[in-house]
């Protein structure tokens, strides 16, 4: 056996590589004039929107875009010395859970409470909603008349057996819809409703909302439950298959005759341990400004929560005004676990 000096050299190179590697500690974060942002949002308009803040305030933004729940766990684990100032996420149940875990600081800001309607924010200022999305019902216009689906309750009608497509129950968008049914109808009736919907499913729940819309388009089902912006995204596309989908698949804004359509929000708040409090307050107030609201909402074809902000989104504007369910959104967070239990019991996978 030949023992070469080469293998020795190789081993040494590997060792020094590791040595250097362990000292690659993340860049030290300057203490002044930065905002450390954890956000679960990721859209093409984000750059413009972040640059706008830096231009207006001279404060640089450090950010981590990640999964809602992973970032939440990270904030909890980082504790008192954590670097994050602001946490932005989607779905009000997540905001509520974050507030319950005590990670948000209560913030009294006259401008925020003036601009954002009360049911879109936490009463103590732990979190604020900055854009809203509606959970709507899509249908095949050749098979169904919109007044047959005027209410969410109609989805449980047995005449739709084998006609409904939706994503799994465990997704926050479906959980918050079930939660709203619990709040309005009570647990027992909500369970009956969920059982009805589960019995009407055309196929086991899978995929995202866009998949359900496409399934209606090709005829796998006649009805889909979806957030409105997935539809708007297809409306804004020039592809022939998308144009024909928009022709065939239409939307209903349910419960216009009574409580209004179920909406959810994306939003955030300042963290309890935020090292740069001034920057955080400025950032949240910037988010409620007219320009930022337009960027923030438009990035995902959502509605700004601040009333009277221009949309600059013809497709979204084409829907016009509609009545939204005005229950305080925090209630949805409280009932989320009950919603999942009901879904599991009635076999809504």
């Amino acid at each position, binding site marked *: 056996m030949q023992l070469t000096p080469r293998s020795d050299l190789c081993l040494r190179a590997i060792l020094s590589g590791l040595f250097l590697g362990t000292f690659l500690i993340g860049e030290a974060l300057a203490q002044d004039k930065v905002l450390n942002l954890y956000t679960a949002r990721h859209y093409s308009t984000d750059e413009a929107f972040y640059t706008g803040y830096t231009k207006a305030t001279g404060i640089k933004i450090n950010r981590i875009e990640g999964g809602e729940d992973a970032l939440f766990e*990270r904030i909890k684990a980082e504790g008192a010395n954590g670097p994050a100032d602001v946490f932005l996420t989607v779905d009000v149940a997540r905001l509520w859970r974050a507030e319950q875990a005590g990670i948000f600081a209560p913030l009294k800001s006259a401008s925020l409470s003036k601009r954002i309607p009360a049911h879109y924010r936490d009463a103590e200022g732990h979190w604020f909603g900055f854009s809203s999305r509606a959970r709507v019902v899509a249908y095949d216009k050749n098979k169904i008349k919109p007044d047959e689906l005027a209410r969410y309750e109609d989805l449980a009608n047995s005449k739709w057996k084998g006609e409904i497509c939706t994503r799994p129950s465990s997704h926050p968008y479906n959980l918050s819809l079930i939660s709203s049914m619990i709040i309005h109808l009570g647990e027992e009736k909500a369970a009956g409703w969920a059982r009805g919907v589960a019995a009407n499913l055309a196929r086991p729940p899978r995929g995202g909302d866009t998949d359900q819309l496409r399934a209606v388009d090709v005829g796998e089902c006649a009805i889909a439950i979806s957030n409105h912006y997935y539809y708007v995204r297809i409306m804004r596309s020039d592809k022939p298959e998308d144009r024909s989908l928009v022709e065939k698949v239409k939307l209903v804004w349910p419960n216009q005759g009574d409580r209004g359509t179920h909406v959810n929000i994306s939003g955030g708040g300042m963290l309890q341990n935020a090292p740069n409090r001034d920057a955080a307050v400025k950032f949240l107030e910037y988010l409620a400004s007219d320009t930022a609201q337009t960027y923030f909402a438009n990035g995902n074809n959502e509605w700004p929560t601040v009333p009277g902000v221009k949309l600059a989104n013809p497709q979204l504007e084409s829907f016009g005004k509609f009545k939204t369910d005005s229950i305080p959104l925090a209630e949805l967070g409280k009932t989320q676990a009950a919603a999942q239990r009901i879904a599991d019991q009635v076999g809504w996978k």
Partner: protein
Amino acid sequence: MTGAIALRARISAAHIFTRLGWLGWVSIATAALVLAPIVAVVSNVFQSSETTWSHLVSTVLPDYIWNTLLLVLLVAAGVAFFGVLSAWLVTAYSFPGQRLLEWALVLPLAMPAYVMAYAYTDWLQAAGPVQTALREITGLRVREYWFPEIRSLPGAAAMLSFALYPYVYLLSRTAFLDQSRTTMEAARLAGYGSWGRFWHVALPLARTAIVAGTALALMETLADFGTVSYFAVNTFTTGIYRAWLSLGDPVAAGQLATCLLVFVLVMLFVERLHRGRALYAGKRTPMPPQSLRGWRALAACAFCATPVVFGFLLPAGILLALAANEPEARLGPRVYSLVTNTFTLAGVAAVAAVLVALLLAYAARSVKSPVVEGANRLAVLGYALPGAVLAVGILLPLGKIDNAIATWMHTQFGVKTGLLLTGSMTGLIYAYLVRFLAVGFQTVEAGLSRVTTSMDDAARSLGLSPARTLARVHVPIMSGSIATAALLVFVDVMKELPATFAMRPFNFDTLAVEAYNLAKDERIAEAAIPSLVMIGIALLPLILLLRQIACSRLNK
């Protein structure tokens, strides 16, 4: 009487620990470091959360367990079938395309299973090109014909099999190449045909490697969330996420994760038993490949091409078509930082994982203590934990230590350090180590099992210390396994999502993160571009691996 037993127990316990030596202690300390996050997850067992449990058990859990078992069985069959047979064909025979296929069979390693799932779903769903074409040709409408549903349990098993069989292929190929000519000649003389030689001689001799590769694939299957959740196949991991996120009960989630770990431990224990005490050693004279002709050659070629086509070429083609069809999807200048970040993380993690794997494998071999052996078995468990659960398991203890350091620095020296480890590269590399040590360890260990103990004895009797025996005897012999281990970890880290997602530093995105951010927002076509870049980059280390594969053949 009892006193005597206790005394004997204490003596033997003392004996176990004095025998460890520095190597044993270092390896135990390392294993403990890797184990800490797993312990953080398991510690949930000591808290109570009865409502979530009874809810899950009475509703969905039985279904999830059944699905998980079925998925594990199907993937085991899939990876063993494609991995072992293709390895045998390319090593024992020569046929047209064999040279090309020998390295092309590794390509699916560059394709993350979840990306493959996006691609196939887009292609095969009712609204996708295949079914649309089918409807146009036949004039049938949706629901008037039967078409296999890709988003199903068999679909998930197919994705995972095509994505993971290269582990089995690589390890069993090395094992087949190592089998000595004399053994095979003897088998031939004993009247075994080519099938008999494979079934009765080559396969049992390569058993360790095959089982090790399959174990890797199955651990990854159990930890998978990306593919199964995209396909809405509810597995045990779904149950963990459901308890944690929907039901808001992290304690129950930790307990479910512990159950998963116990299952894996049992699996690994069975693997150990299976391996037994067999020591395989033989002269490594090359086995001349038998040349195939006619339909046999064609069949061999077609068989080996199948996993390459379905595991790499087809999904890559679908992604390319998607990207080409999306004129607005561009990465722009961000791509440079994405590529650099991805490379840095994967490179450092690969080196770290191989060094730790070498340390542990070597300690177990030379110290021969049940303590070291046990610590090693536990240290690789991180591979079977769903990445997000593991990330939480790491963040908790790391955050505690970090805050303690920060507070101490502040009170002692008045310096505000902030958090040094959490959210740093070091923290992230540590997470990768916990997650992927198994890949490095299994590969290095399989390599080490080919170094005979008599070589050790010879080196030691010539006066070499254990460390020098490692550097001057084992490393040269095992350079192939070491390179394989490093490259496997490199590719795995590149594809890794949940830990990167949860633990990366500020303004530090990788290709996998970018792809997932787009995909989770249902912008699959836009996600195709970072996915393709990621696959392209994963090909670079794979080419290195392939060169090494080619060399390993030449040297014999």
